[in-house]
């Protein structure tokens, strides 16, 4: 439906298929970006009641005025919903802050199918400023993906460029004397770029992407000791993850990282489904693609509800780590922006 519209900046009548306003140059179809922890577009959690006792009175300092419990703020627990994708992140039961970062976005295509971009990063908590590292990486990667899509880059190129940009953003955090091996701010990264035809995922570290549908599959291979043993077909998955040091990362983003490029894979679904992007706070409890798919059969229809279900599952199973879950229905049809 290419109806006529007016420029949101200068009100000059423009053609809806135009990308820029002929009069003032404003972008007519800006990307929609939601960042977990920023009270911004897509934030599904505005002023909820106390998470502990349910009273509505929350003090300005963020504590319940009745039971004193600290209310989740920023990234402690955030829910994002932009219609074409949704995500939930939670600090879990055992960490005092959330070092996972989540950005979901979509780039409108006048007269065509929008592209959805999702990035999840997991700060390596043994390094300083891990929460800053993951946030910087996720925001830089998402911005890079959107720019590349806008510029017409191939999905694989856009994905590689986003990881390289994110790596630079994390390295910049080490500039103030934290660059020694093992002490540089570090994080993992997984991105998903979903178009009407294909799904492209890129990753560095052990954050994962899955395809949830009639035939579910894990799309990523972990950059950790166990993942490399599995990839080399030395051990079965179960054997590898039972081993000592299985979760030790072999690749990460950070000033002390040996490589910066991501692993990239593109997948062409043969039917509808949903792409799941998550941190290890989820897959430590639900590693298997079939189990994941069975837990949220409605992921393609109600992504926010499904993301909440998966986060709740991880919390109930122990919530040892930060948990981040994002779901992108495929194909990315125009859906009403409801929650």
């Amino acid at each position, binding site marked *: 439906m290419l109806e006529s519209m007016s420029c949101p900046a200068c009100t000059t009548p423009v053609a809806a298929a135009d990308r820029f306003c002929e009069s003032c140059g404003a972008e007519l179809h800006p990307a929609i970006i939601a960042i977990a922890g920023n009270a911004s577009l897509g934030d599904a959690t505005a002023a909820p009641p106390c998470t502990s006792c349910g009273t509505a009175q929350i*003090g300005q*300092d963020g*504590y319940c005025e009745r039971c004193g*419990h600290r209310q989740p703020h920023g990234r402690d627990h955030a829910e994002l919903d932009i219609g074409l994708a949704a995500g939930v992140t939670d600090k879990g039961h055992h960490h005092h802050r959330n070092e996972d970062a989540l950005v979901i976005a979509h780039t409108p295509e006048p007269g065509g199918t929008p592209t959805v971009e999702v990035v999840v990063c997991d700060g390596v908590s043994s390094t300083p400023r891990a929460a800053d590292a993951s946030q910087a990486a996720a925001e830089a990667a998402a911005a890079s993906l959107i720019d590349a899509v806008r510029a017409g880059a191939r999905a694989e190129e856009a994905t590689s460029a986003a990881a390289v940009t994110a790596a630079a953003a994390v390295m910049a955090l080490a500039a103030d004397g934290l660059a020694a091996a093992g002490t540089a701010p570090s994080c993992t990264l997984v991105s998903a770029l979903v178009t009407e035809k294909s799904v492209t995922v890129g990753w560095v570290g052990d954050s994962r992407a899955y395809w949830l549908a009639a035939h579910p599959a894990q799309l990523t291979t972990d950059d950790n000791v166990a993942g490399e043993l599995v990839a080399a077909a030395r051990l079965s998955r179960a054997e590898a993850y039972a081993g000592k040091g299985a979760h030790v990362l072999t690749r990460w983003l950070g000033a002390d990282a040996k490589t910066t490029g991501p692993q990239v894979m593109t997948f062409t679904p043969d039917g509808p489904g949903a792409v799941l992007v998550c941190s290890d706070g989820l897959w430590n409890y639900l590693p298997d693609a079939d189990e994941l798919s069975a837990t949220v059969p409605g992921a393609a229809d109600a992504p926010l509800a499904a993301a909440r279900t998966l986060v709740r599952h991880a919390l109930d199973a122990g919530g040892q780590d930060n948990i981040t879950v994002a779901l992108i229905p495929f194909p990315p049809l125009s859906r009403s922006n409801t929650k």
Partner: protein
Amino acid sequence: MTTQPDFAVEVYQNEYLPGGAAEVNAILTITATRGDSGAAADQQTVQAAEIIVVDTSGSMQYPPTKISAARQATAAAIDTLRDGVAFAVVAGSHEAKLVYPSGEWLVPATEHSRAEAKAAVAKLEPAGGTAIGQWLTLANRLFGGHPHAIRHVILLTDGKNEHETPEQFDAALATCAGTFTCDCRGVGTDWVVSELREIASAMLGTVDIVADPGGLEADFRAMAGAAMGKAVTGVALRLWSPQGATVRFVKQVAPAVEDLTAMRTTTGAQSGDYPLGAWGDESRDYHVCVDVKAGAVGDEMLAARASVVLSAADGTAQVLAQGLVRAVWTDDTALSTGINPHVAHYTGQAGLAQAIQDGLEARKAGDVDVATAKLGRAVSLATESGNKQIADLLDKVVDVIDPVTGTVQLKAKVEEADEMALDTRSTKTVRVRK
């Protein structure tokens, strides 16, 4: 009106608790500061009222140096009052009599009124008994015309309160509490430490011994000077705590230990005020202990919101500063096992005061074993925390064999003044070395 001092609250605590723990401890450092311009302005605008109450019972002339030193000290305190401060002098015996002025009101300090007052004080002659409750009651009546002033009493006595019933005394104390602050001094060794401590605690003031009458003048001058430095009164510590929590105690721990727990006035379903009295440029430390509902690992709770408040006549309270006492439950024992150094220090200091008081009581009762054990513990605590003033006072009561382990022997012969000084000053603390 006045430029209020700037208040600040700093919180020292280990907020990390193991799962299931419910006791939250924190040290609050409350500091009031006035800029130079503020202090100068206060000299003009702060209303102050000062009453000096001098014991003139018959015993004050045995030896006669006591009454002569009291006259001199009172004159020195009068000279310390700045122009315009409303003041009076009361003579205390089995009744309370005005020395200056002649009627029941306060007179602004001027060169003329100070001279008249000093002339009246020079004629003071000892006679009669001791009824401290009556002295306080007269002071309270005199302050009646000055509800907005910072009201302060210097009280000097040399004897036991024996010419009124304990009920009369308690009633007088209850009437006066909260209307003025009172610093108490005992001269000689015939007064009772616990009596003056009770007055000082109720009236948010200090207590000390001036064993040698010659020391009175400097002490009075210092007390009057400190009173002139106060810029605001009626300050309170307001503690909010979560539903189901109980405040186990609130203690001032520096400059001296004062238990404020029983002084709580309820201000809401989950909050209460503890009186902090008058403030100038100064800093005091408070130990707050709250029992909360135990949380689960990963929970974070606000155990107390500590506000310094100033209540207006209409009941509204202005929050001058605020600090948060938190509880965070963790399964990381490296975090939860450490005791905050401030909390540990003041827990030791409060224990030191208690050990001295218990030890001296046992010594009086003739229980040598308990006295030796308690005073030994006190020596060990004083040594450990670097409280040299108290360690020196303990030295006069016990022979120290090993200060670290607290191995001591009671001295066979102890000067009464030394024992009273140790008792009186047992609550004086040293601050944490930062």
